[in-house]
């Protein structure tokens, strides 16, 4: 499925992205192994759409987000943003591109500088894009705050005066201050109450339709992902296990991990009977994994050939792809 240069309406494409962290031990701090946090990830996100990224804790979702923003340097692979390869840009060139990609964080309490007023925090972004004139900036700050549903007069307040949901809105306003094309939402609602979650999700949706934003939406709540996403990628230990349109993933998912994940999600009716066996064991350590399929230790369908060699993503139909040969009957 690899293409050399992505299509035109694709805003973000990652090819074979890898990030390994060395594990050092002993007095000499010798490298004894690697944690393969992101191990060959391919992604594609069209302009104005949302790509949901689902996975358990520690599967490399947040690392992937930081790689795409180039807050971390990938070890291998390429990232295309609006058709331009950003992995080899210099610092100065990257600075121009970076403002087009922004991030909204999970923790609303750590994502705002406690010593700055909300207005100052948002103004930092306006300064970064070189907006001149204090009055003009102040006006824009109020505008951005109103856009996320917070009265403009709140700009004088400090973050500790706001609740979690309000701070999350402020974080979104800050991301919007530099007029990005892509926002990476790193679990933006998982720290919030359910009622507030819905408000934030609707806000994100409205902003998307008004401003034509694209989202890379990272979450572990499957219902949330189904609600916001156009495409979904399911990640496990640094690999994309299954990728496809939201209907395909939720309708007829194929990978045994997807099945386990989606069926483990709670259903609103307690009486409904479900025929599923919960996954045995825990997520294995990403430290020096065995060769073959990453899911081999917990897979109900595992057989000998899964423990050798690399398994690629196979196309099912259209954009639906799955990293398993068993389910495809090969």
């Amino acid at each position, binding site marked *: 499925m690899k293409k050399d240069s992505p299509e035109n309406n694709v805003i973000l494409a990652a090819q074979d992205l890898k990030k390994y962290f060395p594990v050092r031990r002993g007095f000499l701090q010798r490298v004894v192994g690697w944690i393969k946090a992101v191990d060959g990830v391919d992604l594609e996100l069209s302009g104005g759409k949302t790509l949901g990224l689902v996975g358990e804790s520690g599967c490399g979702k947040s690392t992937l987000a930081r790689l795409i923003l180039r807050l971390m340097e990938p070890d291998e692979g390429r990232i295309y943003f609006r058709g331009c390869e950003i992995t080899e840009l210099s610092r100065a060139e990257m600075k121009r591109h970076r403002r087009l990609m922004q991030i909204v964080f*999970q923790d609303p309490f750590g994502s705002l500088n406690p010593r700055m007023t909300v207005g100052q925090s948002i103004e*930092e972004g306006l300064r970064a894009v070189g907006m001149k004139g204090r009055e003009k900036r102040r006006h824009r700050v109020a505008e951005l705050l109103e856009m996320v549903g917070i009265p403009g007069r709140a700009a004088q307040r400090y973050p500790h005066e706001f609740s979690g949901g309000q701070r999350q809105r402020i*974080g979104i306003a800050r991301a919007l201050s530099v007029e990005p094309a892509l926002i990476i939402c790193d679990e933006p609602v998982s720290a919030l109450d359910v009622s507030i979650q819905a408000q934030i999700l609707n806000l994100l949706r409205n902003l998307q339709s008004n401003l034509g934003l694209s989202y890379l939406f990272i979450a572990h709540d499957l219902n949330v992902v189904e609600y916001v996403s156009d495409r979904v990628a399911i990640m496990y230990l640094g690999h994309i296990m299954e990728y496809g349109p939201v209907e395909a993933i939720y309708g007829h998912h194929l990978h045994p991990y997807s099945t386990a994940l989606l069926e483990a999600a709670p259903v609103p009716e307690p009486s409904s009977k479900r025929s599923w066996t919960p996954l045995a064991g825990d997520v294995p350590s990403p430290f020096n994994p065995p060769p073959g399929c990453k899911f081999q230790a917990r897979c109900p369908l595992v057989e000998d050939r899964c423990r050798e060699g690399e398994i690629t993503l196979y196309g099912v139909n259209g954009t639906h792809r799955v990293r398993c040969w068993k389910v495809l009957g090969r």
Partner: protein
Amino acid sequence: MSASDAFDLPPRQTRLQESWSLLRRNRMALAGLVIFLLFFILAVVGMVLTTGTSPQLDPSLVRLQEKLRPPLSRPHLDTLPPAETPPLGLYLLGTDELGRDVFARMLQGAWVSLTVGFVAVGIAVIIGVLLGGLAGYYGQSSIRVGEVLIVLLVVTGLVNWGRLSQAFLVTITVAIVGLAAVLMLSRTKKIGGMLFLFRIQLFSVDMLVTGLIDIMLCFPSFFLILTVVALLPASIYNIMIVIGLTSWMGAARFIRAEFLSLREQDFVTAARALGISDWRIILRHMVPNAIAPVLVSATIGIAGAILTEAGLSFLGFGVPPPHATWGNILSDGKNYLFDAPWLTIIPGLAILVVVLSFNLFGEGLRDILNPKLRERH
């Protein structure tokens, strides 16, 4: 749902107001602050009154016939020329063994103590913030053999400048030029071979700075200061600088530790994603969040610096006479401990009160700036 439904804005309370209300509850800290402000005013007024060609209160005016007069005694106007009478009409704090007015000398000494305290701690905080910030923010980047060689060459060059023969200078210059050429060539990768030796990563910036901190902490600082002061010409500025150079380690450690945790915070990541420059991130986003413990230790450090200066002056290594400091008033007074106890009691009490007030205020500040306490409030 409309924006105004989203929340009610709570009554406005700035950080300063909050701090002030917390400070008002802490009586000891408030007392420390008041005494400090009084001391500050007194020192500034004293500086104005005791300097110049004909000062209001002359701290070095010798009236031998009036020596060792107790506090609040009136001058003998019959034996004293009218120009030498104290302006207040009495010796507020008595006179010393040369008949000099102790009140005037205490005022002059107050300014010395104040400036020594602030300048020394200022130097310590600046060095500490710079080195600690370097270790905390850029700590992971490593230093290569080539860079160490360059620094060594430059330092030996500077140390031996103009002292050794020209032959030495020539060798040094050749060595520097040669090394620079080698490094330039290694950038372009035209010659490989032994060049990798220059690129071996020796240690990280963090290891360098923390190592320096540990080395500095190994020396008993008072004796280090004594040694340095014995070598340098005695002057008030040298003392300030030396005290500053030997007391920055605490601030550096605080800033390093704070930076290490702040660097991983989301708001710093967000600032980097917005494309803000490193300098602005450090100065606007990280330092304001890291400075609270440094302020506390600086306040207590001022007390320590005042005490160190008094100790040095008492031992005769401090500010040279005839300039008065609390330490040398105390030192001169100890010979007349039984005849004129006010010569030791007055400067001793002054040092005690000022140092105590700084310590109390510093500890109060620590409680006030403690975020846990804030939230409970």
